[in-house]
């Protein structure tokens, strides 16, 4: 039966067997599996990533040696600041503290990176106008960067709401404290946009001074039942500058 296959076909079959067998040997035995296996590629990628050098040591490491500075910093406004925010990457310094010294910013242009006035910065974040705030003086001559203190801690609303304070100062309401109408919780100072102060929400609130028969003698009086009908007071009168509208 084998004899009946023509000679040329048999020879061709040998060539086919060699080519197919060679491919199988090459694929499964000669070429390394790292050429095909996704898992190996991924593992070597992860190993390459993990092998990268760490350059920022982390703030807990710093406190291990610089204990005195860490205790001072813990009490100040910069308590949540990582040391390396200002001093730069210091992992090399932790390995060889004597020869490698981290960067210490002393120039005036460094602090304004965070503290220069910018209208996009959140209200309440301490900001200065660099051109008029003690020109040319390095910040560290007056402020200790590990325990910074503003000359006056902003207790007044005007520290942030200066525009409203200026308007109110020349209005009939100049002598009324902000807290008479607004209650601001302590959290408002920390996250000013999330925790907002209260605002009066009824006509009766203004009426406490402005209704007929109220005890405030100097306040102009109106009849609450007829004046302004269904409108709320601040829809016509701006409370920080009343009497203008």
């Amino acid at each position, binding site marked *: 039966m084998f004899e009946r296959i023509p000679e040329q076909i048999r020879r061709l079959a040998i060539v086919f067997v060699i080519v197919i067998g060679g491919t199988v040997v090459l694929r499964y035995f000669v070429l390394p599996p790292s050429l095909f296996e996704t898992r190996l590629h991924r593992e070597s990628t992860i190993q390459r990533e*993990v092998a990268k050098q760490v350059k920022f040591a982390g703030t807990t490491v710093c406190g291990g040696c610089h204990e005195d500075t860490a205790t001072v910093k813990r009490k100040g406004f910069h308590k949540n600041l*990582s040391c390396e925010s200002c001093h730069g990457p210091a992992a090399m310094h932790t390995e060889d503290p004597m020869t490698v010294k981290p960067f210490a910013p002393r120039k005036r242009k460094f602090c304004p990176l965070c503290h220069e006035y910018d209208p996009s910065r959140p209200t309440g*974040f301490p900001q200065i106008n660099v051109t008029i705030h003690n020109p040319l003086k390095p910040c560290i001559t007056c402020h200790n960067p590990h325990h910074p203190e503003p000359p006056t801690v902003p207790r007044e609303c005007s520290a942030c709401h200066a525009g409203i304070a200026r308007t109110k100062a020349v209005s009939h309401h100049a002598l009324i404290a902000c807290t008479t109408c607004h209650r601001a919780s302590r959290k408002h100072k920390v996250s000013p946009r999330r925790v907002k102060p209260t605002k009066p929400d009824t006509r009766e609130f203004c009426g406490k001074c402005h209704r007929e028969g109220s005890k405030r003698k100097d306040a102009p009086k109106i009849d609450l039942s007829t004046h302004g009908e269904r409108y709320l007071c601040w829809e016509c009168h701006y409370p920080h500058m009343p009497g203008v509208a």
Partner: protein
Amino acid sequence: MYRRSFLKGLLWFISARIFSRNGVTRAIASTNPDTTATTHANGKSIIKGYDPTRHRYAMGIDVDKCIGCNRCVEACTVENDVPPEPFFTRTWVERYVIKKDKSVHVENISNGSDGPKERLEEADILRSFFVPKLCNQCENPPCVQVCPVGATFSTEDGVVLIDSERCIGCGYCIQACPYGARYLHPKTRTADKCTFCYHRIVKGMLPACVEVCPTGARVFGDLKNRASRLVRFERMNKIHVLKPHLNTHPKVYYADLDGEVR
């Protein structure tokens, strides 16, 4: 004569290759410079003392706290050897200005190539804020789908990585990323992007940008750990993600994000 020696050599090579197959594979694995990583044949854990299946990393961003100081961008550049040219960044900060006529101006403040910054008249501003951006480490990443050579992939702990030895630098992923988080590295000619500082987080450290953020606008944590700062951040805030309609399921969560942010 030459043919005979060539065929002989070939035979020797193939047989030697077959016998030493396992040895060579091991040699390739051991050329890796890191000593903390070991390859296991079962593929369970390749980093000593670290089980990626028990973690799921994500980042939270408190938009109200960002002061646009660019500390994060500088720290990232140092930590990850990002090219020094200002237009290559793995993370960046955008300034949004919404004017009183409701027009929206977006400016990348980490990108020095923008030229002199436009000085906006303060009276025109309705509201303005900074938005830090980075790779969103999507659960359903478009960049992984388009990569023709499978060089980019999601790890078990939820970080999208790039195999720089397989990346051919075709740039499809850079086009596919809806957040513009990728760039072509000018030296290696491969795609590059934020890895959540993978080499730091597997050691239990914070990513460099989170480490240096002075106001705590960036929060990093593990979604599988109920006690992590990030889970608390998710509980306490109204969370938004960028471009949710694209079904990418980003893992960078923004708190109190303005509706104008794209």
